[in-house]
């Protein structure tokens, strides 16, 4: 029980980070950025495919 009580203590810093994190569906900033980059690359490829290479 005492273990658990110890773990429930939340430092203000962590709290802040958690609040910030809560505004995103991603697990970390890096994940969010990489996913965004990946998606944009896909969009760019599709746009190039339809407007340039196949047009």
């Amino acid at each position, binding site marked *: 029980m005492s273990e658990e009580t110890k773990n429930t203590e939340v430092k203000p810093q962590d709290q802040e980070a958690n609040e*910030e994190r*809560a*505004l*995103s*569906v*991603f697990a970390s*900033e*890096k994940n*969010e*950025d*990489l*996913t*965004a*980059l990946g*998606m*944009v690359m896909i*969009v*760019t490829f599709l*746009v*190039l495919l*339809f*407007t*340039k290479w196949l*047009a």
Partner: protein
Amino acid sequence: MANSNVGRPDNTPVWIISGILLIYGALVASGALTGLLTTFKVHKAIDLMQTMSFMGGGLGVVVALLRQSRMGKPMTNFDTFFLETVPGVLFIIALAMGIRWFAEPLMKMMSAGLVPVLGFKIHKVLNLNYVVLGILVGIIITNSWGIPKFAASGVKTARFVLKMGVILLGARYSFAELAKLGMVSVWMIGFFVLGTVFFTLFLGKIFKQPKSMTGVLSAGMGVCGVSATVACAPVVKAKSSEMAYTIGTILGFGILCMFAFPTIGKIAGMNATQFGAWAGTGILNSAQVAAACLAFNAVDIKTLKVGEIFNITRVLFLPVIVLVLATWFGKASGQKLTFKEVVVDKFPIFIIGFLILFFMSSMGLFSPPDHYKGKYLDFSYNERTEVTPEELVTLEDAFKAGIPGLHADEKSAFADLVKQHQIAGNFEDRTNDAVFKETARERMRGLESMLARQKGGELTLSKDVKSAVKHAVKQVHKKSKTVVTLTDAMIWFFAYGLIGLGMQITRKSLAQAGGWPLVMGGIAGVTKATLSFIVVMYFVKDVVLH
């Protein structure tokens, strides 16, 4: 049974939104709305409307069915990251569609209707485009009904989508833009961008504002308004309300500048180039720069061109600013950071994405490398670049009769248009690309100057001649379909992201920031405008563009 949904919000809204999207798609496909859409001048987007409505609606139905079948079962990752997120995503997409295709055009029409009363287009002055409308709609929803439960998870995707928009922003610019500016201009822009950033950070310290607020405001005031704010916000961990404040400050300050700049410029006796350079440095929003330049001088095309290019070039300083802010934020938070930690670990990956797209664009992957927002000039000999035979007759007649009041460059440009049937360089230079293009550009400037002076009442051209010259200029302006499509995608990402952003702004959070951001923004903006005014008056004489 009370807890049978295990935290899942009701499925009904998902059905309703999917239904609305599908019905809208069907109405557009049937042609029932074509009249209305033509009135709103959005009929060109009919294909996109159908695609988005049917895909969104279809996805909504699938998700609604899956959620129905999983009600009462424990949540898995698939539920958290997909099934619970999609409803909110669809909700924001539906709102974005409403703004892009109804609210924004309606605003334009209403403001056009008010021109006889007010004498100007109010949506342009207040900058009521999808950016502002998106944030406003988000704020209104949150502060009146609150974010609907089913949409809560989807709203959290806003920042992610905004990042996609910033990455795509890179596709619109190229190195060629920097090359067009002289070294003096690049130094000047760099100095003012960095100077404003540091000055705002300094003001933040004096007024004891939160680091996140100061950081995001400095980026917005220094670089280029909305996009810079969005790009730098994650770096300094800015809250949505702080971003909204920054965007509000920038646009508000820009409105004041739009009226003050032309008047001051005229009183100080600035020439066309000087004013363009000053407006491009001092005013933050590109639409407002254009408006101020046109208000100062609608006759000399140089003003607008210089103003725009100064304004656009600032965006290229974005990665530098991100680096500066990352270092500053790390230091201000009490961390000791080595150079490697700042550049390698703290540099946001999405800004690297922006650079990747910028690099691809500079390499000419999306359009010829010297494009400007996807527009480029094509002077090659080509039937599609020529004026029509009827127009040629009109031009020949006008040339024989002579047009009084033409400047020498306009005269020679006009003579060559009659000779070559299109805007081009000298035929004998056609193998020397650089010379050929430069001559052609000069001729195009000559013709554009004719049109501008005609508009300003300095020159009299018959209606047919005017339309023929206009057509000749239009013919060499080509647009890269790739960049146009990518830009469209970017606008959608921004619209989506800003609605989501607006939904995270509560009255309480705005009240917390108080009026200080406005004060700081005002001081930084006025200082920059004053200093750049002095610099422009003393150092920018005439030629800033190659």
